[in-house]
C-alpha cells in the first residue's frame, strides 16, 4: 500500500432546502483515503451515506436549493472550488462512480459500447476504432463473455449482473484513482451480489484504486474493506479497521446494528436483538446525540450534548467513535468499563 493520499474530506456538510425546512443530510464528516485503500461506509436510509458519496464526487454542489460546506480534495484538487469544466476533467480521470441500480444507470436507448467509448473518446481523445478496442478489453476485464458481441447490444438485453459489470467497465475506462461504489449490489440477486463484490475487490487491488464501498448491508462490507465508517443521521458514529468494528463495536448503534441481523449459525426462532424505534426525521433531528432516543444505554448528558468523534483506540490502528459512553474495548472489558444502563430490552 502506498502512502499517497488520494482523498481528503474535511468537515463536509451538505444541506438541502426542503418544504419542511433545512435538512442537513451530511453533518460534519471528515475522512481521508490512500491509494489502494478500501473504505466501507455503512448506514441505514437517511444516514447520509449516499449524499456523502455524491458530495465527495462533486455531483452534489452548492446550488439554489443545496449548500455544501467544507472541502473535498481528490488527488489534491478541491472538488467544490473547481469550475464545472475542471470538475468534468476530474470525473474523466481521477474519480468514478458505480450506482445502485444497473437497470436505471444505463441509458436504455444507447448501445452498451457507446456508454464506454464516448468517455474514452472525450477524455482520452481516442479515435473510434481505438476506443472500441479499449472498450472490448474493459468488458473482458470485468468478466463479460463475448465482449465484442455485447458492444452492439442494448442494456435491456443484458441481465442485471451483466449490466452492473458494464457500469463498472464504464467507471474504469479512464483509470480512476478513486472509485465510489454506491450500493452496487443492492438491486441484484444474492448469487450475483457476491460475484460483483468479488469483482470490485479484485479490480481495486490490481489497479491500486482507492475505493469507497457504500452499503446498508454490513455483510457486504465485512470481508472486503480495510476500514469501516458507520454513519447515523448524517454523522459518523464510528470508524476503525473493519475487523475491530465487527468484532468489538464501541458505539451502541454499531453494536445494535450487528445484533439485529439474523445469523446463519443461530438456531431457528432465535429472538433478534432489535434496535427500538426508527431513524430520526432529518428535517428535525433530536438534540444531543442523534441516537439517544433509540439507545439502550442513554444517559441525561446524551440528550443535550452532542458527542464528538474522538480517538478511543487502544491499539496501533485508529478507532474513533462519537459517544459519551463508548462500549468497553473487547480486550479490556471489565477493567474500566463505564457505567452502563440495563441491557437492551427487546421491545415491540
Amino acid at each position, binding site marked *: 500500500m502506498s502512502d499517497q493520499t488520494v482523498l481528503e474530506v474535511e468537515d463536509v456538510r451538505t444541506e438541502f432546502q426542503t418544504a419542511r425546512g433545512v435538512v442537513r443530510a451530511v453533518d460534519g464528516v471528515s475522512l481521508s483515503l490512500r491509494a489502494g485503500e478500501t473504505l466501507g461506509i455503512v448506514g441505514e436510509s437517511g444516514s447520509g451515506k449516499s449524499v456523502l458519496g455524491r458530495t465527495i464526487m462533486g455531483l452534489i454542489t452548492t446550488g439554489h436549493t443545496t449548500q455544501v460546506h467544507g472541502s473535498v480534495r481528490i488527488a489534491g484538487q478541491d472538488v467544490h472550488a473547481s469550475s464545472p469544466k475542471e470538475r468534468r476533467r476530474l470525473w474523466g480521470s481521477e474519480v468514478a462512480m458505480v450506482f445502485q441500480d444497473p437497470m436505471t444507470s444505463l441509458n436504455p436507448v444507447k448501445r452498451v459500447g457507446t456508454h464506454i467509448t464516448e468517455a474514452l473518446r472525450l477524455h482520452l481523445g481516442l479515435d473510434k476504432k481505438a476506443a472500441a478496442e479499449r472498450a472490448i478489453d474493459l468488458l473482458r476485464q470485468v468478466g463479460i463473455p463475448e465482449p465484442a458481441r455485447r458492444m452492439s447490444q442494448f442494456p435491456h438485453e443484458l*441481465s442485471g449482473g451483466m449490466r452492473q459489470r458494464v457500469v463498472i467497465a464504464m467507471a474504469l475506462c479512464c483509470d480512476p484513482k478513486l472509485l465510489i461504489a454506491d450500493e452496487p449490489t443492492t438491486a441484484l440477486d444474492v448469487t450475483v451480489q457476491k460475484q460483483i463484490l468479488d469483482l470490485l475487490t479484485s479490480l481495486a487491488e490490481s489497479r491500486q484504486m482507492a475505493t469507497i464501498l457504500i452499503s446498508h448491508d454490513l455483510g457486504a462490507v465485512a470481508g472486503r474493506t480495510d476500514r469501516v465508517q458507520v454513519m447515523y443521521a448524517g454523522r459518523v458514529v464510528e470508524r476503525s479497521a473493519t475487523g475491530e468494528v465487527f468484532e468489538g463495536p464501541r458505539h451502541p448503534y454499531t453494536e445494535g446494528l450487528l445484533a439485529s441481523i439474523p445469523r446463519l449459525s443461530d438456531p*431457528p426462532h432465535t429472538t433478534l436483538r432489535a434496535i427500538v424505534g426508527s431513524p430520526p426525521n432529518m428535517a428535525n433531528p433530536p438534540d444531543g446525540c442523534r441516537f439517544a432516543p433509540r439507545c439502550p444505554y442513554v444517559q441525561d448528558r446524551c440528550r443535550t450534548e452532542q458527542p464528538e468523534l474522538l480517538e478511543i483506540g487502544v491499539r496501533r490502528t485508529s478507532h474513533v467513535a462519537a459517544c459519551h459512553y463508548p462500549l468497553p474495548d473487547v480486550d479490556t472489558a471489565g477493567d474500566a468499563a463505564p457505567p452502563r444502563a440495563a441491557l437492551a430490552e427487546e421491545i415491540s
Partner: protein
Amino acid sequence: MAGSGTAHLRPEQAPVLTVDDMVVEFPVGRGQKVHAVSGLSLDLLAGETLGILGESGCGKSTAGRAVMQLPSPTSGRVRLGERELTGLTSRPLRKARSRMQMIMQDPTSSLNPRRKVKDLVTEGLAIWGFEGTKQEKEELVRETLSAVGLDPDVVWDRRPHELSGGQCQRVCIARALMMNPEVLICDEPVSALDVSVQAQILNLLERTKERYDLSMVFIAHDVSVVKNISDRVMVLYLGKTCEVIPSGRIDSDAAHPYTQMLLASIPGAGDRELSDSAAAVELPSPLDPPSGCRFRTRCPLATERCAAEEPELREVRPGQYVACHHPIIEE
C-alpha cells in the same frame, strides 16, 4: 408436465394448507409463455412456518399470490383445510380468501395513502361480518394495534405517509390480523425496511404467530432471515422445487447444489465448495427453461443425465427432500 414430486407432503398430519401440482404460466404473446411456477406442491401444518427461499424470477412471489388465488393458478389444486379453493366462485372464494392474509414487501404502497390508520385496520371487520357494538369494534382494533406494537392513541388518526416504513408494516400486519386468518402469507415483508427495523418486524411476526395461532408462509431471498423464522425451508429455482429441509439444518446439511450456492453467496460465508465461478452466468429465460433439471446450466456438478431426466424430490435424510441426481451428501 412432471412436477418435482410430492414425497415431502404430509397428508396424514392434517395440514391447514395444501398445494398440489400448481402451475402458473403467463402468456406473453406470439404463443410464448412465462413458466413462472411449474408443478409446485407444498403443505403447511398448523402452527408451522414454511420458508420459501429463492432469487428473483424463481416464482416464489407468484406462487404466494396463486395460493391466494390472485390470480388463480393455471392448473393444480389449493386446499385450505378440507376446502378446495380452485374452482370456487367469487363470493365463497372471497370468504375463504379472508382466512388467508398476505403481507407484502412494500408496506407504504399497500396502504391506501388517503385513509387513516383506524379506517385501514377497521375495514376488514365489516367484510367478515363482525357483529358487535361500535365500542366493541373499536376495542378490538385498539387491542390489535397494541399487539403489533403501535400505540393506538398515537397512530389512530394518522395517515400512512405520516408513519415510518416499519410502522406501516405493523399497520399491514394489524389489518391482516383483523380478518382472523388461519394462514399468513408474507412476501418479502422485511426487504424494504431499514436493517435496524427488520429485526423488530421479524420478532413481531414470530410473536404474532404464536399469539394468534397462525400458520405462516414466509417468502424471502435471504437465507439467514428465512432460517430464523421458519421451521421448514423450501428452496425454489425457476419455478421448481430444489430442496425441502428443516430450517435448523439448512446451513449444515443442505444437499442441493443450488442451496449450497445460495449459502456460499452470503457475505462472509467464506469459500464454500460451490461458489459460482467469477465469470458472469446468465439466469436462463423462464420463457424457455432448460430441459431436465432447470438448474443444470449453472450447476458445477451437472452431467448428461441432468439434461435428459428431471430429478424428483426424494428423501435423503429424515425430513430432508432433494430434487437432484447428484446431491451433496457427506456421510
